[in-house]
């Protein structure tokens, strides 16, 4: 029972982690908390639903198309909304993402209705025995995806020119510009990456929950809390935070009752901000830019 709760907590936590990483990556390069991150996923889930149900496409093809669509969405939001106000203060930027959040909610409700839709489960729900517990194959597949994406991100940030440039922009945007790095293009890439991560979260979580305009609201909050665990800066910190939230809320739900599940993340963030406001890993204070 305990082992099972932990493992399925890790499985959900790994999807929070993808959201958290996207929140961190966008924050580091734009000083913006992207409230629309969850809705990028929601749009991705709806697109995948259309591709699978209405167009009869294969699951993987649909996933791929949803990813492409969400990358485009992220880039579009940067170009049309964020870039024109890029030099504004953080509150303006924050409010703009809130605007995008409501627009995407509205658009989804307008096109597809406000009622919840079931996502066609495309993987075998047969439980599989994993170290000390039973786990649905879906959970396992989600974890495998999250690990694969995490590895791809690691490779990107460590070994590719654009990935290293993205870290350079995080470090010091003015100097990056001076070195000939096109900072605006890197910021565009950052939003594209947010869309890329969002699509996976949306399509992978849809079979576990449902598809509806508000489907991602809770996940976004948990992703954000996890990002704060990493001081809104550290990617590993955000991942650890996300897994911690996934496991803790599952245990709370299992042992204390399901009404405790949702509150868990909030209790965790209050405690975190009270005792370690700089994040779990003691990130040194970043200089003002």
């Amino acid at each position, binding site marked *: 029972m305990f082992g099972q709760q932990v493992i399925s907590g890790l499985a959900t936590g790994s999807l929070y982690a993808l959201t958290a990483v996207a929140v961190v990556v966008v924050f580091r390069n734009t000083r913006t908390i992207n409230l629309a991150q969850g809705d990028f996923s929601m749009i991705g889930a709806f697109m995948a639903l259309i591709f699978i149900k209405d167009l009869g496409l294969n699951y993987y093809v649909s996933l791929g198309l949803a990813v492409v669509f969400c990358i485009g969405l992220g880039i579009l939001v940067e170009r049309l909304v964020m870039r024109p106000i890029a030099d504004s203060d953080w509150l303006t930027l924050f409010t703009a993402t809130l605007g995008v959040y409501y627009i995407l909610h509205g658009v989804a409700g307008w096109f597809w209705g406000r009622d919840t839709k079931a996502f066609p489960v495309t993987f075998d729900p047969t439980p599989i025995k994993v170290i000390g517990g039973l786990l649905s194959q879906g959970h396992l597949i989600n974890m495998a995806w999250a690990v694969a994406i995490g590895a791809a991100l690691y490779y990107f940030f460590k070994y590719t020119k654009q990935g*290293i440039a993205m870290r*350079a922009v995080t470090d*010091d945007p003015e100097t*990056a510009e*001076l*070195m*000939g*790095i096109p900072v605006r293009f890197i910021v565009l890439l950052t939003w594209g990456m947010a869309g890329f991560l969002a699509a996976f979260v949306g399509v992978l979580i849809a079979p576990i929950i449902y598809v509806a305009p508000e489907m991602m609201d809770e996940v976004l909050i948990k992703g954000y809390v996890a990002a704060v665990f990493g001081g809104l800066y550290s990617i590993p910190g955000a991942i650890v935070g996300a897994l911690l939230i996934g496991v803790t809320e599952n245990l709370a739900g299992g042992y204390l009752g399901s009404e405790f599940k949702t509150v868990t993340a909030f209790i965790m963030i209050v405690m975190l901000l009270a005792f370690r406001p700089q994040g779990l890993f003691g990130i040194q204070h970043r200089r003002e830019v």
Partner: protein
Amino acid sequence: MALLRLDNVEANYGAVRALQGISLAIEEGSIVTLLGANGAGKSTTLKSISGTVQPSGGTIEFEGKPLGGLTTNQIVKLGIAQVPEGRKIFKDLTVTENLNMGAYSRKDTPGIASDLELVLDLFPVLKERSRQLGGSLSGGEQQMLAIGRGLMARPRLLLLDEPSLGLAPIIISEIFNTLRTINKEHRMTLLVVEQNANVALKNADYGYVLQVGRIAVEGTVDELGKNKDVVNSYMGAQE
């Protein structure tokens, strides 16, 4: 023909007229120094050349082509790289990653690899620390990294903003020796902004002294060296 020519350049920095008509010419293969007190307009001159500040008047020409309206990364691609004031190395990137970011605008992978070798040979201490984070280096090592990063762009003209700032005399002379080597062996043109007139005049070919946005004196370093009192009076002239 001069490699870089500034003709009557004016620039505003906020409400301040930081440059009030600067004209200067930098010959290919030379080391030129730009001296002046704090606030004389040295950094604004460099910013105007690198395109981070748009001049409000005058022209800047590189190899006879005007730079007006170009973005910083277009200017880097043309062959002007900068070693910024205060080194500004990327603290969370390794030494090698920092150097590679200097070459961001280049596409010739083999050329980048051989230039990386070259920079690591010029500054052996960077080779020892190639996997360390930039932020963990000492001030002198960071300056070497900043210069190396600038060289990685394989520029025709390298702009250096106060490379001696905050460094011990022995490190300063080591760094200027390397700069002279780079200038001689690779025929790279250098424009060195300095507050330290002694060091700059010892190492450059030609010098300009800025005072409150104008060029007060110019000449070969020998001429300026003979009039050291004049130079020093401008250097000390705080606003």
